[in-house]
């Protein structure tokens, strides 16, 4: 008769703190982790930047609208604004007014297709402003969609090496298996950590930029209507 005695093997000591998990990892997993951390830093930088930018843009538009509809003369408004660096609605207004001014300069005012020119100028300005607002949002989208896969790659690689180590140590004890898998899963955790805020922020900023552009287009249409009436009255 053979007697088998179940023995509880002493689990090898493994630190599971952040840095321990990082240092014990395979080089490929390390690179993945560093990349994901950098992506996370970059994403948050963009997020902070966009929050500030969109907030500022919104405030500027509101302020400009109150000034514009306050009954102030358009000429005066143009004179105060045209020397500054303008954004959003102010830029729209300045671009349209500049085209209007130029058309009335000289001996023969070119009024025939002035309406079309003003519309085009304002369209171009809106596009430029939208581009400024959407700048770097694609990075958020890319990180949001690819970071989980990058993390998963790190995890798969880590688990691969962990299993190789298990095969080499010829022990299936969970205490042998666990640290390697914990390390590997850390990569997925980092990937998700980078991806989740990026996805959320991308969706939010996308809709914010869409709203801002729609607001500018509305203003452009209104302003175009005003100028069109002026052209017809003078012509």
């Amino acid at each position, binding site marked *: 008769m053979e007697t088998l005695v179940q023995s*509880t093997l002493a689990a090898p000591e493994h630190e599971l*703190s952040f840095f321990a998990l990082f240092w014990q990892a395979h080089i490929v997993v390390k690179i993945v982790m560093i990349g994901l951390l950098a992506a996370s*830093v970059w*994403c*948050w930088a963009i*997020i*902070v*930047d*966009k929050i500030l930018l969109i907030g500022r843009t919104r405030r500027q538009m509101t302020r400009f609208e109150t000034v514009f509809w306050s009954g102030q003369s358009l000429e005066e408004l143009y004179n105060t604004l045209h020397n500054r660096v303008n954004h959003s609605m102010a830029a729209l207004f300045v671009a349209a007014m500049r085209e209007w001014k130029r058309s009335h300069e000289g001996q023969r005012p070119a009024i025939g297709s002035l309406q079309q020119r003003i519309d085009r100028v304002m369209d171009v300005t809106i596009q430029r402003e939208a581009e400024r607002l959407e700048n770097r949002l694609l990075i958020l989208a890319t990180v949001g969609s690819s970071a989980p896969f990058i993390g998963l790659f790190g995890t798969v690689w880590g688990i691969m090496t962990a299993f190789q180590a298990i095969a080499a140590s010829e022990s299936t004890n969970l205490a042998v298996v666990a640290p390697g898998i914990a390390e590997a899963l850390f990569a997925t955790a980092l990937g998700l950590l980078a991806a989740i805020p990026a996805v959320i922020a991308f969706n939010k900023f996308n809709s914010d930029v869409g709203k801002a552009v729609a607001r500018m287009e509305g203003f452009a249409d209104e302003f175009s209507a005003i100028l069109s009436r002026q052209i017809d009255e003078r012509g």
Partner: protein
Amino acid sequence: MRAGLIASLAGHSAILFWGLLAFPDAESFSVPQVESLPVDLIPVEEFTRLRIGERTAEVRDVAATQPSETEVEEPPQPTDRPGESQVEQPTPPTPSPAPTPAPEPQPVADPEPEPEPEPVAAPEPAPAPPPEPAADPEPAPEPAPQQEAAPAPQPIVTSVAPRTKPAPPRRTQEPPREDLNTEEIAALLNKVEPERQQGNASQEPASLGSRNGAQNVRMSQSELDALRGQVAACWNPPVGAVGAEELKVRVQFNLSQDGQVSGNPRVLNSNGNPAFGAAASSAVRAVMRCQPYSLPIAKYDAWQEVIINFDPREMIIGG
């Protein structure tokens, strides 16, 4: 953009720092210490089976249900002690072939192993016992079961008497085991088995069984052995008494789940021997002294009621 980058870097380093503080090392789970049980790899045949009890079944010596074990482990028994082994065998002619192989390997133990003298000696037993009752425990019970078998040991005993007294019966079995070769044992077994048939109707007689009659609850042989060993360690058998070898005590007791004996152990059998009272109380004392018993909780059905045969020759447990 610079503001955003600075804010992001500051936030990440803050989170990492917090992670260092808040997630030091993972705390290990507090795992309850699991009792490690010795695991015996044994063939299925050695499992003791607890079957549904039959009310009509008679209480019988569990010793009688163990032929398979004794046959395998102690084949030389019949050769060693022809007189004793014959107790179980009612058929007179067959025992003679069985002991015949004995003389060769064991010249010292029995000077007169030849079974032929047995019938001749039959008339003599009456006078023989009186001189050596103190010396040897065997004679007292033997005359009762059988006439031919009983006389046989007496001539043997007279010669062996001084040797058997100090040594417990086990020890006398050992030398022949070394000498015997397996073929002889096999031949012996083949002859012995049919004789046994009569004594023990079946290998597994209907037992009174456990009260719940759980058919699938079994105690493995090793668990029974463990219990037996535990009780045996606490037991002081009445060695010096007259006929101590035949003082079998059958004790029944109930166990609670924590291994404590609940209630008082009951002695199930009786015997005419004047020393039986002492033997019975020693058995009860052993049962009480050894508690608590460590047995697998999962099989509580199987061991909540235990019957142990205190047999001075070997302790045998019945469920």
